[in-house]
Each structure stands twice: as C-alpha cells, then as structure tokens.
C-alpha cells in the first residue's frame, strides 16, 4: 500500500518531489518509475533489502548518479533528467541537499575545521572568518569542539561521521540525505551518530534516511518507504507498516530484520 504523506500530515509544504525516476546500468534495471514526495520538517526512512535501489534513489536526487529519465525537484529547483541542464541548475540543486555517506568521504588532507569551512567559502562565498565561526559552532553542536585542529583519520568512525554531518549542515541545506550513515560503524559508535540525527530531526530538519536501523525508522521517522527490486512497494506510517505490512515482500523483509 502506498500512501501519500499529505493525507496523513496535511498542511506541510512538499520540499522534495521525485517523479517517474528510472535508472539502469547497462542491461541491469536498478530503478523503474519511482515516485516520492517528502514534506518539510519530516523524517522519511527508506528501508528494504540490499540491491533494492535505495541508495541509487538518494544518489539520483543530487545527481551523483544521472537518472535515465524522471524529474527531481528539491526546494523549487527542478531537473529533468532527459533534458539538458546547466551547471548552474545542477549546483543549485546540490546546494539545497546535504548528503552524508556510509564511508563519510571526508577530505583526509585537511583539518576537521577546514573540512567544514572550505565548502562554505567555495560554495556559498562566505569569508574564512565567517566560515570558521559557523564550522566551530556546528562542531560544538556535534560534541566535537576540541577536534577542529585534528585530521579526520585521527578521529573515530563515529566522530568522522558527525564531522561529515557538520560539513553538510554548514551549507544550510533544505534537506539532508543520509545514505546508510551507521552501516560502517560499530553498533555502539553508531548510536552516537543516531543521537545527533535525532537531535537534528527534533530541530525540524527535513531528512531522508536510507537505513537498516529499524528502531530509528520506527521511532524517529514520520514516513516510511519500503523498496524492493528497483521500486517503492510500500509507503506510509512507519508504526503501521512495521506492525502490519501489507505487501508480502515487506512482510518477508521485516521478518528477516526484526526477528534476528
């Protein structure tokens, strides 16, 4: 069953609209006709078996992956994959979405502070002083006030992921995209990242989270998307779907992850 989140959470602006998204790598169809809407200030969790296309949807949303067809709209910036678009349009779309990767993807040759402040200077044109100040404020919020002069590889995985979150937040995105942010971390260390994400959700950030953390999906997200075989098979209230999934494939997946 696929519910429109507007029906459950009325009166909120649609910040993200993905329409008729399709992507294949050679013969292999990864996504076909994916449609989704994300409302402002909500957390949307995406779950599903490996290879379902969850990460690809996320990567198509900021054009790290070029879809074969479909449109992506984030905060009013629209890109139609089948039409030519300018770099200006591409960068405008990317600026409105912050992305957090499974493997952090920090810049190892820069200090933690520089990782967070350089993109602000280059992308938003902030001065160094302004960028450093904002970076320190965010690092402090992430509990990393003393790490500014360290290099990323001297930090733990959980710290590196929080640095990556700070780096993305520093550009004031409208939406944060999380691509399995805790999958490369020990469960205990993953917890500190999930805490930061909960705090971020509580502050009203719009978030799309691809995850295998079922309790996060159940307790934090307002909307749940289940993907399988390159398409969305179920969408709606997380607690309802977790309790009584309607699609047989969802039932099978949830049995596998919840009863281990």
């Amino acid at each position, binding site marked *: 069953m696929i519910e429109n989140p507007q029906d459950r959470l009325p009166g909120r602006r649609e910040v993200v609209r993905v329409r008729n998204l399709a992507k294949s790598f050679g013969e292999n169809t990864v996504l076909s006709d994916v449609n989704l809407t994300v409302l402002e200030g909500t957390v949307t969790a995406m779950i599903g078996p490996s290879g379902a296309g969850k990460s690809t949807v996320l990567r198509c949303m900021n054009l*790290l992956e070029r879809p074969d067809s479909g449109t992506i709209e984030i905060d009013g910036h629209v890109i139609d994959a089948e039409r030519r678009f300018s770099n200006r349009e591409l960068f405008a779309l*990317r600026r409105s979405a912050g992305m957090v*990767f499974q493997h952090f993807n920090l810049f190892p040759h820069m200090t933690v502070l520089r990782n967070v402040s350089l993109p602000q200077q*280059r*992308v938003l044109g902030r001065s160094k002083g302004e960028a450093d100040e904002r970076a320190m404020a965010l690092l402090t919020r992430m509990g990393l006030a003393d790490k500014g002069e360290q290099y990323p590889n001297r930090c733990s995985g959980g710290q590196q992921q929080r640095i990556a979150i700070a780096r993305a937040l520093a550009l004031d995105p409208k939406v944060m995209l999380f691509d399995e942010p805790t999958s490369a971390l020990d469960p205990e260390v993953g917890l500190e990242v999930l805490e930061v994400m909960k705090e971020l959700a509580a502050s009203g950030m719009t978030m799309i989270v691809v995850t295998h953390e079922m309790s996060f999906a159940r307790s934090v997200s307002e909307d749940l998307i289940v993907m399988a075989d390159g398409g969305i098979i179920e969408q709606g209230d997380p607690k309802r779907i977790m309790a009584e999934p309607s699609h047989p494939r969802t039932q099978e997946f949830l049995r596998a992850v919840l009863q281990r």
Partner: protein
Amino acid sequence: MTFFTDAAAFLPVLLNGLQVSAILTLLSLLFGLPLAGVLAFGIMSKNRVARLIAIAIVEVGRGAPALVLLQLMYFGLPDVGITLSALASATVALTWTTAAYCAEYLRGGLSAVPAGEIEGSQALGMTTADTLRYIIIPQGWRIALPSLMGFAVILFQATSLAYTVTVQEMMSQAYSLGASTFKYLTVFVLAGLLYAVISIPATWLSVLLEKRMARHL
C-alpha cells in the same frame, strides 16, 4: 698515494662539469614538470583529440631511449633547418623524457585519489574546478611525489648521456681528462663518486619527504 694527488688535480675540472650536469637536470625539470602536468590532464581528458596528442607525446617520450632523443635533437633537427646549441638540444630531449615519465606518475597520483572524496566534494556543490584544485591535485601530487623524486635522481644520472652531443657536463670532462692523462680508472671512479654523492642523499631526502607527507593519510 697517486690516487689522491691525481684526484685533487681532476676535482676542479669535474666540479665544473658537475655544475653543467646540475643545470641540465634543473632545466629539464623546470620545463618538464609543468609540461608533465599538462600531459597528465591531456591523457585524462574527455576530448579525444587532446587525449590522443597527449598519449602520443608520452608514449614516444617513454618508448624512445633518452640517448636516441638526444641524438635526434642535436644531429637530426639540423636536417629540417633547426639548429640548437648542444645544451639547448640536450635540454629539449631530456625535457621530453621528463615530461613523458612524470605525466604518467602524476596521472597515477591523481587517479589514486579515492572516488568517494570526489563524490563528497560534488555532493557539497563544489565545482569541478574546485574539486580539482582543493581535493584532487593537493592529494594526487603528494601520491606522485616519491616517484617524481626518484625520477629526478635518474634524470641527474641520465644527463651523463649528454656527453654524446658535446655538452660539457661531468662525463665529458671525465672523458677528456682520461684521454689526456690515461688515468681512466682514477677519473671514472672519481666521477662515479661525485654522481653518488648527489644521488644517494637525494634518495634519502625523497624517502624522508614521503614519510612526512603521509603523516595525515
């Protein structure tokens, strides 16, 4: 101890030659390294014509022995109306060799920067030029640096080939000293030592630098 008295007499002449060897090395690096950078980007270019030209220059530069290029520049070019001085033709030939080898080292370094970091930069909305300038080049050239320094040592030794095109570098000085005194053993031992005195510490330096630069990685 005739070795030491002979060596003391030869040393000033050889040191003059060494100076020319050093100048030839530095000139080849000065022109060759920037050209190597351009060629490295040429090889990786999406533009077919640029890529083919760059590959052709690099493959000839690596495929042909430096000695052949030296002879070509000095004895060959006058046939088509281009006459260069001995030092100039040696500089052109060794610049070509330098550019070709170093282009491959640089290309290897640049493409060793993890794809994830490049995606990280793109996802932040950084332009391609900024990604190159702040992420790919600063890390790529560090990865290439040990190979580049190793090449510089080999290049310094390869300048000895320039004696075949009458450049007055150390090898040619040693040769004429040997021819006039017949003390070939002394003079070539001394020349070999002088090459080693520069090359060995340069190798140590490259290892040291490699360790220093890998500190954060």
